């Protein structure tokens, strides 16, 4: 167990002895004292440039930023580390944490997803580079999680068009967006939900439709019902969907007999 007193740390921090700083920085790093290790390593990083110790020091410095939660900086330095020391035994680890740093920068799904896309790319690159990595499973989990974010984003936008359809008088936007969603995310987790909401929007469009387009829209809505029923026979929405379907069917019957 390591024991470095506060005064020792302060003394070394203020001293000119780079070797001592290097040693303490690596001891502190091994002990998980990220903040202190970071401060020391930052001081001497420049001095070891081009020297053999630089490899370890760069790694320590970058990983400290990572553990301290400063992911922008960490990913930047870790990326640089793997660039300069591709042969390092820590290269794989650094590459993984660099990618994971991008993952942490990804915001909630309902905001701009630039960082999410970037993180997926970085993780994918890692997976391609190190197909046998021990981090592979985790990397794949992270990618899945990020993919789901993009999926959720598109889904929620399409669903909002359904929600505000009564105000905008536009359910086509929702149907169109769900169709785009299903095209763009073929293996989507929310696929079943999308089928239902697409049908729901089509139902509302048909019921509220002007007469001359009504028949076509009723049929289209029923088609979307069939798609839901066929692909997701156990869908939790089916009960609700059946009620709407009945209504559509009736509407269609009266409409065709009327004309």
């Amino acid at each position: 167990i390591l024991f470095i007193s506060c005064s020792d740390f302060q003394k070394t921090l203020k001293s000119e002895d780079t070797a001592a700083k290097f040693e303490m920085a690596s001891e502190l790093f091994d002990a998980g004292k990220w903040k202190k290790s970071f401060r020391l390593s930052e001081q001497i990083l420049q001095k070891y440039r081009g020297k053999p110790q630089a490899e370890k020091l760069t790694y320590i410095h970058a990983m400290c930023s990572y553990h301290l939660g400063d992911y922008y900086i960490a990913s930047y330095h870790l990326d640089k580390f793997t660039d300069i020391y591709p042969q390092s035994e820590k290269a794989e680890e650094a590459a993984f944490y660099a990618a994971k740093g991008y993952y942490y920068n990804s915001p909630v799904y309902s905001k701009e997803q630039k960082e999410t896309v970037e993180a997926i790319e970085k993780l994918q690159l890692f997976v391609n580079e190190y197909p046998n990595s021990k981090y592979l499973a985790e990397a794949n989990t992270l990618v899945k999680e990020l993919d789901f974010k993009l999926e959720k984003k598109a889904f929620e936008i399409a669903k909002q068009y359904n929600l505000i359809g009564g105000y905008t008088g536009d359910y086509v936007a929702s149907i169109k967006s769900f169709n785009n969603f299903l095209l763009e995310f073929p293996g989507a987790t929310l696929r079943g939900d999308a089928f239902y909401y697409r049908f729901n929007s089509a139902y509302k469009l048909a019921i509220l439709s002007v007469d001359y387009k009504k028949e076509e829209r009723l049929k289209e809505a029923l088609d979307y019902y069939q798609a839901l029923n066929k692909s997701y026979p156990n869908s939790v929405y089916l009960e609700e969907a059946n009620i709407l379907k009945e209504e559509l069917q009736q509407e269609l019957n009266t409409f065709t007999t009327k004309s």
Partner: protein
Amino acid sequence: GETYLIKEIKVTGNTNFSEQTIIAYSKLRKDEEIQVGGEKIANAVKTLWKSNLFSSIDIYVINIDGSTADLEINLSDLPELKDLTIEGIRKGKKDEVIDENKLKTGQKVTENLIATTKNYLTNKYRKKGFLNTKVKISTSQVIDSVEKERVNMRIDIDKGQKVKIKAINIEGNEKITDKKLRKAMKNTKQKSLSPLRLLKRSKYIEDDFRADLISLVDYYKENGYRDARVISDSITYLDKRNINLDIKVEEGEKYTFGKITFVGNTVYTDQQLSNLLQIKEGDTYNGVELRERIADETNPDANDITNAYQNFGYMFSTINPVEVSAEGNVIDMEIRISEGKPAYFNNVTVVGNDVTNDHVVYREIRTRPGMLYRKADIIRTIRELGQLGYFDAQQITPNVKNPNPVDGTLDVEYSVVEQGSSQIQVQGGYGGGGFIGTLGLSFNNFSIRDLFKKDAYKPVPRGDGQSLALRLQASQFFQTYSFSFSEPWFGGKKPFQMSTSISHSRQFLYNSSTGSADRDKRFNITGLTFGLSTRLSEPDDYFLLSQALSYQHYDLQNYNTGLFTFGDGTSNNLSYTIGLSRNNLYTDPIYPTGGSNFSVSAKFSFPYSLVNGVDYDALADERDEQEETINEYQANPSTNPAVISAYDDAVARRSEIDQERFKWLEFYKIKFKADWYQSLTKKLVLRPSVEFGFLGAYNNSRGVIPFERFFVGGDGLGNFSLDGREVVQLRGYPNQSLSDADGGSIYNKFSLELRYPITLGAQAKIYALSFLEAGSSVNNFKDFDPFKLQRSAGFGLRIFMPAFGLLGIDFGHAFDDAPYGATVKNWETHFIIGQQF
């Protein structure tokens, strides 16, 4: 040429650079094969030239010995500039010349430098009208102990005299008068005695003159003279200061439009298109007009043919006017239209919303997937996103992506840049007899559902478009606390705004014996408001209908002022407000450049007097009696105990009556306000506005209430009072000086403001303004005269910074006296804080 192997390279000539440097730079190497006249030597010379360090570079092949040879690079350094003297211009201008031509000490002096400097100076002064400018640049070698080529430079500038145009003579024009042609030349004018043209001087600037010759020809073209041209132009020097310009034109024939046929149109009929074109057969030929009617580049909202198609889905349409015949000076036109498929939006996306959640942005977008493409919808979306205040209005851009003429689809991506929408106001100042401290927080893009999420505090939870405001203000005489919250899309289905606010204020009277606040004499007001408002779709969707229910409780304790005859008592105000407003201001909410904003509202209480069975007529009569007793005593004080006691009784009874009258406030209040914004030029914006307010009573015996009144005059900043009062800005007069001390029950106001933007960047928006205002306030409809107004004029400045809100200063000059006796200064200075109107 011959090929040799290089044995040695040496450097000769007059240079300060080391041999090694020059050789390395030339990229020539020992033991390398070179060809005489070959590429390598040529490249070496080129590279050395490019360095801009040498005045002459020669490479020789010497000491040829069989297949080997030596190279000699002979070069001399360019001289460096040592001292510079400039004669003929003011000292202040010299630095500008030095900066723009990089004439610093140490600069290498090349022929090019001398030539460009000379041209720069000659042009510079010619552009200012000094046609006879002569510039002479000479250099002289510096001989001193420094072993470097150095020169001193001397620039002599002889501007000569400013040249004026005495006359512009135009020859060859028969159809169009000299006067009209001279007018068409916008920046080249002859000397004139007309006072109207004092600002445009008659100096001669060649570039402007060239441009004006084109304008002149354009003027002909606009009037049907399609072949018109300038045959010659020349300058006659009358003397050193005056020239004449002689222009010879050839007018050619006048052309008219012949048949105009539309080809390829299926969406619009020929008749509809020619209505848009507004050009008929037989009209004077005007190419400029024709172009504008087809596509007016200067106005995105123009009613032209291109927009007719662009606003009807035909994104891929193209329109080309073609002359098909020009027989007998009559030009037949064919407007060839390729309509293409109507385009529909496929993907609609938003990027850049790092803070604001998708649902807040997407619900405002008027171009939704599956909708027909309409350019006007994109323009309106940009305007409306700008008005939210969450994004920098100047930076919202629509990017059309993946336009696919085959499928008839396109994507649009709105790129936004978040801007700070929170404001913090911490203020301390002296006013109202002591120190006033204010703490105001307002968050305009708040997210209440993230209130308990730790991660969301950056520094406050944001992104759901809600607004939350907290305000605390205190001095020794008053304290106010208020809190308000609003959600613009309550329920998420439609723009149905829910807002609520709670406030509490305490006021204390001044104690003249201690000189500070008397805490035993206080007036507390507690209020609660709940409001709903919704956007309407009829008559158009700029309309907003709002309703509010509010309750206020007034609690007085020992608070006797001129305002209240009941010093101890309470009053309640339960009222309902309904308002209709229409706002289509665009684009920037801080600096609108167009649109109008009008609102009309009615606030009223329940008509208690109709149902509560109190005989207010009798009360009013009784109150008059008490008043009489009181007035009698005050006019003629007596020591008779019976009279004193009667007086005391009367005072007490009067407060009792007033307490009865105002226990539950009974009133109605009607307000109207409208303002317009109109761009006069590219930058100037004119804002006329008019407003009116009326406070009335259902039961005249019960009377007009002492609260909810109008206070006209001054900066218009509603201070701490929460008694429903309306503080109306009228600059040039002291605050509230145009109303009775208790406030007026009627007011009207007109104002005219002219605004000029200084900067409209995201960090700070600054504009200057000047204004004319007139308004008045009275207590009685009998006294109301809409034309008897107190007038003022003035000017000011506004600065808006996202973190601080709006700050401003106005200087107003009053033209009339204040009606209630306040002293009116010549100039009144107003500080405007946080007010947005």
